[in-house]
């Protein structure tokens, strides 16, 4: 999502931390193994960013394409 390396490093650390904490909490509640839950959460975050990222995401691209088609 970010356009600069420093932003990318900070954001990746943040996403990792959030997924780690949230995954551990969820795993504790549901009595599932902790590691896999964290991995699945982090994968979901990555897939969500591929879909929803501003400018580059798949949805943004589709939106831009339909906007272009509308003006033509």
């Amino acid at each position: 999502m970010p356009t600069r390396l420093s932003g990318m490093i900070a954001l990746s650390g943040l996403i990792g931390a959030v997924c780690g904490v949230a995954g551990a909490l969820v795993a504790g509640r549901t009595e599932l193994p902790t590691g896999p839950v964290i991995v699945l959460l982090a994968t979901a975050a990555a897939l969500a960013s591929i879909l929803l990222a501003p400018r580059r995401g798949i949805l943004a691209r589709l939106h831009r394409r339909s906007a272009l088609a509308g003006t033509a």
Partner: protein
Amino acid sequence: MNLDALVIVLTAGLLATACGVLGSFLVLRRQALMSDAVSHAVLPGIVLVFLLTGSRAALPTVLGATLVGVACVLGFEALRRTGLVRADAAIALTFPALFSLGVIGVSKFASGAHLDLDTAIYGEITFAPLRTLAVAGLDVPRSLLVTGLAAVLTLLLVVVVLWRPLQASTLDPQFGEIAGLRGQLAQRVLLVASTAVAVVAFDSVGAILVVAFFVVPAAAAHLLATRLATMLILAVAVGWASAVTGHWAAVHYDTSISGTIGLATVVCFVLARLLAPRRGLLWRAWRRQVGADRFTARWYDV
């Protein structure tokens, strides 16, 4: 060489044939670690088969594993084609998620049964001569039959059916598309075939040898060859050489056969890195020395 040793070397060599041919394309496409990814990604398939049938029989397990492996590589290919993640990141996005699903499945539904990758599909090449199958009244080792079939089908698919589309789409993707060679379709077929060979081979010889055969001989051949066909032949040759020398060394030093064959492929790669014509380190150093000597002789009249 006794019969058991012959079976082991032939099984490893036939597997090296299939893996070398497919692996060359994967290495050139920078997707070499796909086989390693598949080795982990198949776990949910095994769990699913176990839940549905309650069995760990070989055939349904391998089938389920292959299906999930194919889903993994198609997911990876779809991610890569978005252009938002590179091939390596796309591989790393798909297989940990699938492996995690598998681990959760095991702990939730099958914690009583002893179910993990080692017992379910990872075989061991040392035992290849022991697991036999009756074919036309003869006891044929199953691994030999399976890897032989895999080698023949792979050669037919890659060399006879898909040679031009694969060649074009690997070396020059844009040309492949413009020339109407259906490069993307060929790429998908390549991935599915690699997955099928990998899963079947896990069952016959174990995971690490499969990964080694997919990556290392092709990487060594890449250093030696300047043409695609030569690279494929050299990759297969490196695989066979590793199978023979690795098996001999394992028997001689009384160690793990698959480990030693895997190590032999790496030795081949290191030799290629050092000695390859034009690209090897020693070759380059020698050329530099020859060039310097000529320069001295010419300008300083020594």
